[in-house]
Structure formats: C-alpha cells, structure tokens
C-alpha cells in the first residue's frame, strides 16, 4: 500500500496524479464528474456498515466522497489519508467516469477540528451532504463545525441508543441545519398508505405498529402532529415495518421493494429542500419550545 498522505496538499497532488494516470497511455484521462460532495463521519464501529453502503453509491451519485474516521483516543495528533478513484463504465457513453473517494483518519485532537480538514477538499459550488453514522455527539465541536460547512445533515435515528432524547437534541439543531433521517425515509410508503385512510381516521386516537421502535415512534408523532391530536401508540417489535393500523383501519402500502441501505442514502442525496413535516414530527419530541 502506498504511504499515507498526511497533508491536504498531499491529497490534492495524489488526486491529480490519479486523474492523469486514469486513462490509457497517450489517451485522455477518464472523466471526473461530481454532482455533490458527500462527507461521512464514521466512528470505528460503523466502518463496515459505511463501506457496504458506499459500494454502489458512487455510480449513482458521481461525487467527491470524504470519509472521516475519527480516532480521538489516539495519542498522536495527525491525519492520514488515502485517495482512490472509483471508475465505472456507464451505458451510453464511451469513456469511464470516475468519482473520488478520500478516506481520512483523524487521530488525536485532529478529530475535534474536522472542518479545517474538509473545507479545502469540498468541491466548489456543489451541495455538501454529511452522513453522520451513529448518534451525533450533540453540542460537540466536531458536529457543530461540520454542520456549519454542510448543506444537509443525514442521520439514521435508528442508530441512536435513545431516540427520544436524540430527537429532542436534533430539534435544537433544526434552526441551522437541514436534516434528513433515513429512518423517516423508511416510513414513507407507510405514511403514503396511511394518507389513503383519510378522512376515516380524522378523529383517530390510537395507532398500532409492528416494526422497529424508531419507525413506530416517528409514524405516531407524524400522524399526531398532522391530525392535531394525541395518539396512543401500541408497538410490537419487528425487524421492519409489517403492520400499521390506525383505529382499526389497516394501512396497505402499494407494492414497493424494500430499499437497501445504499438506496436509502442515495434517496436522501437527491433531496435539497427542508422537510418541514419531518421537522414538525421531530419538534413534537422536544421538551424545549422552539
């Protein structure tokens, strides 16, 4: 393996070298195409899941991907980076198209000041998405810094150990960050199905959900906020949503294929606007008046 790159200049040089070397000898370099910068904050325990999700994503969203692996417990303060070009042939075009993946280990105190590392690497004029793996360290400098250079923060609240508390803290961030929640995205076919029960459920008072707890919570809060009523949630644990019933009316979603983790993240990378409906549901968990 090549020596790790330890400065931004090293990373830039390596990117340029890889681009030049990407074509056949004497031929044009392969195309670099970007529609966004995709950052991911990946603590140690999420590395495998993040790598899996990333596979296949580059092809759908040609981008510069910056993977940040924080190692705050390391004694040495340093950054170590690797750069990779992921090239693929696309139907209909003759040349290969490449996305750039920059993996950076932030060791020691470097993990607390990540914005200064990523800012020089952001592709200018394109949106920046930040996927935060696991629970966000609410109020920490690394989260605050990265949110400030990001157009959209993507979380998956099903990765949080205590979601209610997490939503409470997330609600405080909504004023300055646009947020996507992959757990919320998973409920979309079911929200659509529940919507078809209108107006029979206008006066609903209870909801029964068989599925993951986080998704049940989000569905119940969403419906409660939309109807302007308190709903009693009856929850049966299951690996994925199997049943949603509102006051005895069962919601039946249209045929849909269960999306993969990559599909779900990919879907969020296509959204730019605030999701006010999600924000209202999240704020309903908040103990603080926003």
């Amino acid at each position, binding site marked *: 393996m090549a020596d790790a790159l330890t400065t931004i200049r090293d990373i830039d040089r390596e990117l340029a070298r890889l681009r030049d070397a990407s074509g056949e000898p004497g031929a044009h370099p392969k195309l670099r195409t970007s529609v966004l910068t995709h950052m991911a904050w990946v603590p140690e325990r999420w590395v495998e899941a993040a790598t899996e999700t990333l596979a296949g994503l580059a092809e759908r969203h040609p981008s510069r991907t910056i993977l940040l692996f924080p190692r705050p417990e390391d004694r040495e303060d340093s950054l170590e980076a690797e750069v990779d070009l992921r090239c693929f042939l696309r139907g*209909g075009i003759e040349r290969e198209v490449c996305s750039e993946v920059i993996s950076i280990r932030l060791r020691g105190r470097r993990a607390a000041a990540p914005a200064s590392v990523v800012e020089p690497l952001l592709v200018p004029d394109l949106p920046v998405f930040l996927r935060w793996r696991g629970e966000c360290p609410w109020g920490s400098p690394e989260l605050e810094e990265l949110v400030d250079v990001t157009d959209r923060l993507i979380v998956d609240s099903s990765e949080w150990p205590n979601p209610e508390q997490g939503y409470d803290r997330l609600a405080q961030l909504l004023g300055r960050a646009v947020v996507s929640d992959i757990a919320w995205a998973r409920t979309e076919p079911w929200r659509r199905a529940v919507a078809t029960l209108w107006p029979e459920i206008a006066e609903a008072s209870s909801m029964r959900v068989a599925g993951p707890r986080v998704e049940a919570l989000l569905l119940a809060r969403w419906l409660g906020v*939309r109807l302007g009523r308190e709903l009693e949630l009856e929850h049966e644990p299951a690996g994925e949503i199997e049943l949603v019933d509102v006051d005895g009316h069962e919601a039946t979603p249209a045929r849909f294929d269960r999306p993969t983790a990559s599909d779900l993240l990919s879907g969020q990378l296509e959204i730019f606007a605030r999701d006010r409906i999600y924000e209202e549901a999240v704020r309903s968990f908040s103990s603080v008046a926003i």
Partner: protein
Amino acid sequence: MTQAPAATQENPLLAGLRKRRQAEPCALTIFGASGDLTQRKLFPALYALAFRNLLPANFGVVGVARTAMSDDDFREKMRQAVAEHGRDEFRQDVWDELAEGIRYVSTDFADEGGEQHVVECLNSLDGERGTGGNRVYYLAVPPSAIEAIVVAMGQRRATGGWTRVIVEKPFGHDLESARHLNEVIRTYFDESEIFRIDHYLGKETVQNMLVLRFANGIFEPIWNRQFIDHVQITVAESLGIEGRAAFYEQAGAIRDIVQNHLLQLVALTAMEPPIDFSADSVRNEKVKVLKAMHTPGPKHVIRGQYGPGYIEGEEVPGYREEEGVAPDSMTETYVAAKLFVDNWRWADTPFYIRTGKRMPRRETTIAIEFKRAPHPPFELDSEDGLRPNVLLVHIQPDEGVSLAVGAKVPGQGMTIRTVHMDFLYGGTFRTGLPEAYERLILDCLLGDATLFTRADEVEEQWAIVDAMVAPWKRDRPSFPNYAAGSWGPAAAAELLARDGRAWRMH
C-alpha cells in the same frame, strides 16, 4: 367558528409526501399489437413503467391485431419481447402483475362490426380490472388503417370515463392528407384527447434543451442572431432501411425524419421562452417558429441517395440494391437544407439541417456555433488556433451537452487549443435514461400533452415539407450520389461552403 368536516378538508397527511405521477385507472388498447413497434418499444416501455410502480393499480392492456392468437399466446409473445428488449432486469412478479391485465383481440376493422369485439373486451376489462371506462387507444398501425379505427372507436365511445388517442407517425404524407386525418380524428375526439407522437420529444436530452435554455440565466441573453453564427442539426444513421423498403420507398428521408424530428428540433432550438411548461404554452411557441420559417428555395435543399460503400469495415449495398427497392428508385435517403426563421431573434441566422442513412456513424446533435471573438489579442500559431465556441447538444448517443472553448496550452508562448467541457447524462445521473416511449405513454395516461404534437404544428410541418419537395417533381438528380459510409453528397458540403462554413465532422 365551526370546523369543516374532515371529508371536505384537504388531506393533511399528504403534506410533504413527494407528488407521484400516478395515472388514473384505465385500459390501454394497442391497435397493431402484433407489429414490431409493440414488441420492441411499447411493451418494454409498459414493463419499465410497471417496474417502477408508475402504472395505475387498475390497469389493463388490450392488444388488437388481425393475427389469430389467444390471450395466453399474446402474453407469452410480449413476455419474450420484454425479456429481449426491456432495459430492466426481468422480474416475474412485475410481469405477472402486468400480464394479469393483458387481453388480446383478433379482429379486422375492415370487417363489418370488427370493432365490436374490442368494445366487448374493454367493457369486461372495466368489470374485472376496475378501469372505470377510461380508455387510451394507441394507433400503432399504418396510416391507411388509422381512419377506419378512429371512426369505429369514435362512434363507440365509452359512456363514462375519459378517452385519449395516441397516433403514431407518420401523420399523413403531405399537408392535404394530414389535414384530412386531423378532420377525421377531430370529428370524434377533441384536440385535448389527441396525442400525436413524435418520440424524439420523449427523449431526455430533447427536454433538456428546454431546461438548458430556460433554467439557466447564461444562455438566453446570447441565444440570438447577435451572438450565434449558425445552427447545425444532424440526424445521422449508420443503418440502411432494415427491411422497411415498402415504407421507406413512400416516405424517404424527408417524410421519415425531416417533417417530424428535424423540424421539431429546429422549433425547440429557436422557440421563445414559454410562459409555463403547459402543453399549449410550449406548443404555441413551437408553432410560431414553424410559421416564421420561410420556404427554402431549391438551391437550399439537397437530396441524396446512398450507393454501395463500407460501414464499420463491412461492404454494404447501395439503396437501389436493398431488398424491395426499385432498381431505379428516386427515393432520397439523405436531405440537407438551409432554413431561416424570420423573426427578430433569428433573422439571417441559418439553421443547417441534415439527415441521412448509411452515414459513418449514428449521431443526433444540435450544434450552436457562436460568432468568433471579434478581436483576439493573441498572435496565433495557426488559423486553427482559435475556433468559434460551439455548444453541442448530444441527443444520441452519449446524451449530454458539451461546450467547446479556447484554452491556453501550458508552456511558453500563447498556443490556444479548443477543449470540450462535457456534461454527459450517463456520467452524471444515477438512473438509466428512460426510453422515450415510457415518458410519452405515461404522459398520455396522465393527460399531459406537452410532449406531443398539436394539429396546427403538424400542418405547419407538412406545409414546409411540401414546399421543399415541390421542385423535386421537376428535376431528376443522378442517384446514387453518395457512398454508404460517407457524410452525404458533395452538394451538401457545397451548401455550407458557399457561406464560408462547413459541416461539423466530429
């Protein structure tokens, strides 16, 4: 204050859910169901829509043709067509759901009451599939068969629900026949119910032309005679007539490509910004361009016919040697023309168009060539050093847009090279581009006619084509006049050379 009952309130649960383009329940009847178009394009498109859950839940397809076949035979034939020509993986569950609503009617509209079988099938489909009397009639039949079907089905309109008619090209063979066809169809169907297909309009890149022009602030200010030297539009095919001699001998390149695709591309390139993207707003602007186009004189229209030659190293016969073609055929396989749009924006700016079969490669492009920089302050190494900027819209293949700009070659001195800044759809967006027919069929199911051609548009197109071909009756060019695998007759090159210009070669 009393609150409105829930039933009369807007559904608050739909807020924030992305709007889906979901059509109402309906039955699609394909006339000409045993034909090539149905197998290669229509059913693969329907499957692609089903694959993406874009068809309504209550949906049925009735195939109609003279060939005797059972429902099951027809389903099996279409299943094979989808497996062979579909752009998605073949999934049995998706197919089964679609196939459940497929029926086949073998009938001949030339026979008395032949249409009764179709009507009965549709009525029973309403009961079985809940299609609600909503009908789409897809006329994938030769022009000669259209009238009988329109009259028969028009006289037996369903009493409930809506009806739409999709008419495949060619829509007539000249202005008079197009007018007649319009009259016949409008006797039974309102203009808002008629969807004349030009599948080029369903192509993503063609629609992107509108986005490029009207969603970006930088192009419109220079999209006029002040800054644009000329426009070149090329629709080149490397294929020959592929066994379609009977059709092609009648149509030729001018009716096959110029009358519809090429004139549509000119209209989209030259049109003024519509006030919105509604069907009538867009079509109004296109019609204005067609009306403003003045008839090209005989010297401005070149026709050609290919002789033997080579395509990709393989020897191919000339047009007159193709099966089913008369040995003295005077049908043109190539047309080039210089057109002018006489309005404030485009006066004196030529639009050079060309189309041909057996060209060196398949290519559909719109090239906007800008005027040269008026006074470049550089000592150039060669005349070739500073070419004009060209905005190239690739419609097929390699869908995308590229802009040719001059850039300094690194090093001593001031050597300038033209470089291309490319935006390629395939390299930028994740999804494979939908086939034009997917978009157009779905638009029709949704009742959106923006990407279909209106009666007056078709008639304007025919008026231009009729004027172009009128002088052809008087002369008899020496055919063949270009070799297969070349870029057309010498006269086409001269057409531009007279203006000090040349066709783009690559």
